[in-house]
């Protein structure tokens, strides 16, 4: 705890939460109602993703079985019945042409969307933090080299690179792993830049200097002195990266280079549904609405986390101003520090 205290005394804005302020953090998060709603939505989606086989079993369907009798073959394969064939057996109706169950496909699709985005975000954070820290702590040459590489990576358009790589790599490589890997390998530059800048400013602080004088090595300093202080910006950034990665995966699947059939993914469902917007609107609306809700909820959640971790923003929360004494105090203190 000593290092955290030092940091606080030094007045670093971003350090409060993880070290000494775990409970104020939750407190600040809880006061934002929109964030609570978003958190519940995200939790539900995660449950759907994790429990997809179970939910499909409860419904009595699976995502790949064809039901040729449930579509009107003569008119191009529109689902029979109203609202895309929604019924007690098929909760969200069936897919045009094939008659596959949409609820099962959406639930299984959630696994791909959330799973790939999570893996990609983790990869981005790990690479970004590693590169950023090394650049911040390394000597002039290391910093120069890594920073230039980071600049190049910032300039690289993720979508274009991913499109290229995914088209070339043979189909035998498991697609979800590949997509997560590509997004991770191309999209880490933002985090790396933040971490480097933060590291440079922390490096000159007294507690880091003290650690160095005590003869600590670079790795030890990074782990014990820097990482705790970096947690806030990194967490904030990664919570915002996550929905962006969902969108990238959906876009890649939409363009036909992402997840391969018969595995469903939301982006791929959108891609198949794009011509059906007039003939079978629910087919398009369901994956589109889910994608929208997911990304929106995650973005709200990300914003909430950022607000809770950022003392300047937190000071504008009710607890940060008048309602609670402790909150007011800490808020003011941060403000002064910043």
């Amino acid at each position: 705890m000593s290092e955290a205290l030092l940091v606080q005394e030094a007045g670093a804005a971003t350090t409060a939460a993880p070290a000494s302020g775990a409970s104020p953090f939750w407190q600040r998060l809880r006061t934002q109602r929109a964030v609570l709603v978003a958190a519940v939505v995200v939790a539900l989606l995660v449950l759907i993703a994790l429990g997809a086989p179970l939910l499909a079993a409860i419904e009595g369907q699976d995502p790949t079985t064809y039901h040729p009798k449930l579509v009107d073959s003569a008119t191009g394969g529109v689902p029979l019945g109203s609202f895309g064939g929604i019924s007690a057996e098929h909760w969200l109706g069936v897919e045009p042409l094939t008659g596959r169950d949409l609820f099962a496909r959406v639930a299984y699709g959630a696994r791909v969307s959330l799973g790939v985005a999570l893996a990609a975000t983790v990869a981005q954070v790990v690479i970004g933090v590693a590169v950023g820290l090394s650049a911040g702590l390394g000597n002039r040459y290391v910093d120069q080299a890594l920073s230039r590489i980071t600049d190049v990576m910032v300039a690289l358009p993720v979508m274009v690179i991913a499109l290229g790589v995914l088209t070339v790599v043979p189909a035998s490589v498991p697609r979800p792993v590949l997509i997560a890997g590509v997004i991770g390998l191309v999209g880490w530059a933002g985090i790396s830049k933040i971490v480097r800048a933060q590291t440079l400013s922390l490096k000159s602080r007294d507690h880091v200097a003290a650690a160095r004088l005590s003869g600590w090595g670079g790795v030890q300093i990074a782990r014990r002195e820097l990482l705790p202080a970096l947690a806030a910006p990194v967490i904030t950034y990664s919570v915002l990266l996550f929905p962006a990665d969902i969108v990238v995966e959906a876009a890649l699947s939409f363009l036909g280079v992402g997840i391969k059939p018969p595995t469903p993914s939301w982006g791929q469902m959108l891609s198949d549904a794009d011509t059906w917007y007039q003939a079978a609107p629910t087919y398009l609306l369901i994956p589109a609405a889910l994608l929208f809700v997911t990304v929106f909820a995650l973005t709200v959640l990300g914003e909430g986390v950022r607000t809770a971790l950022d003392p300047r923003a937190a000071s504008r929360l009710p607890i940060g101003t008048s309602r609670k004494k402790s909150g007011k105090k800490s808020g003011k203190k941060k403000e002064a520090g910043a």
Partner: protein
Amino acid sequence: MRQLSPRAASTAAIALVLALGAAACGPKDSGAASSDGGAPQKGGTLTVLNAKAQTNFDPARLYTSGGGNVPSLVFRTLTTRNREDGAAGSKVVPDLATDTGRPSKDATVWTYTLKSGLKYEDGTAITSADIKYGIERSFASELSGGAPYLRDWLIGAANYQGPYKDKKGLASIETPDAKTIVFHLNKPEGEFPFLATQTQTTPVPQAKDKGAKYELHPLSSGPYKVVKNEGDGERLTLERNKYWSGDDERKAYPDKIDVRSGLDSAVINQRLSASAGTDAAAVTTDTNLGPAELAKVTGDKKLAARVGTGHFGYTNYLAINPKVKPFDNPKVRQAISYAVDRTSVVNAAGGSSLAEAATTVLPTQKSFGYTAYDAFPAGESGNAAKAKELLKEAGYPKGLTVTLTHSNDKDFATSPEIATSLQEALKKAGITVKLQGLETNAYNDTIYNVKSEPGLFLGGWGADWPSGGPFLAPLFDGRQIVKNGYNFNAAQLNDASVNSEIDAINKLTDLDAAAKRWGALDKKIGAQALTVPLFHPVYKRLYGSAIKNVVISDWTGVLDISQVAVK
């Protein structure tokens, strides 16, 4: 037998055939009533809304079936397709010539006589020497693109370099006088009249030939001449050729034809259904209605009345390569044949209005020699029990795992929907199917190469003309297996009895008799379970609200632009 040369002809060819698609027009009994009443009148401007440009608009370079749709407005050929609705439209009829050709006894020499009074757009007379020159220049490497048949069939043509390099020309094409042309073939070919419909038999006067630049202003022999060609056929403006003396096939009602390409298929269908302004007098020669668009159109009676339906001779199938294990075992192939669920496949291909279940390789039109058979009756939704039984006999009592290669195109033909529907059906028979989806180019390079050909893949075939020959010969003639290049004999079948039957049928000049034997041959090969026929596609296309006289032949399956009137 026609040897498809190693160049990538065929797929490109089929695509082109579809794009340029020749539709027939019913001349005399144009009973094909269309939208509003009233007899079709001359005049007006017809707009053509297309996805693909009319690239390389040179008769030497076009790969067409029956002379093409737009090309046939400008280029007349020795023979052409009969422009009538349905089955009557799959006949060959004379165009520049007085008849469809007079064969020698063994069908190796074909003689044509030109009609009188034929003129180009500049008023000069069309001669048989111009037709010979037109064919010769199609051999020049800078004017490549046509079908390989002329090179394969004409004596001494295999290594001919075209008239720019070889001034002597082809000795196997004789022009004893200005109206007569004689072809000497290296083997009997009873279907030469079909070949003579292709644009390579269009006359080109040597004095006007500008080589590769000729396509900018080809000399018209047909009802229209090219007045403007922008962006390599992206925008083509055609106006009346006043020296066209009229012919029995082309109606040529509109005064002007405006071809606009480079449009998205969704845009084309949207504009045709809205039919606003000049789009009311518009048609498309390359864009079909997709399943979702069909679903929307069928819900609207007015729109549904503006849909032209046709059958082009095409078959989509599951191709099996017996050189790959375990497909060398006939019982495994039979098990797969029994297991397919054609109802699901047809649905995945767009439903029963856009696809008809197939159990034969030959399309169902009479001209192909269609002979009904169902060698391995799978019923409507597959016979999993019978398939399991066969697998057991083949030594796979616990089932087996195979890989199915398909394309990632959204074409409802070789696309993932079809592949997953087969995956599901085969699962019921204990066959686990792994899917290998490839992008268009990789897909074509893989399946048409004997070295990389997968054991099981989604394929399809459309013939260059409506006969069993250009269907069965490329697919099953053992001498047409191409080792270093595009190979279409997917089964790599080299069966002496099949080869000799193909030769025997090619000698026939009675095309009805030939058709019957093609049908019998199809049935015979079908028993070997080398391909699993899945469906024959049906073409549905919208046309504008002012369009009259819609004629759709079985040759092309699409509306014939030479018959359309806008007034």
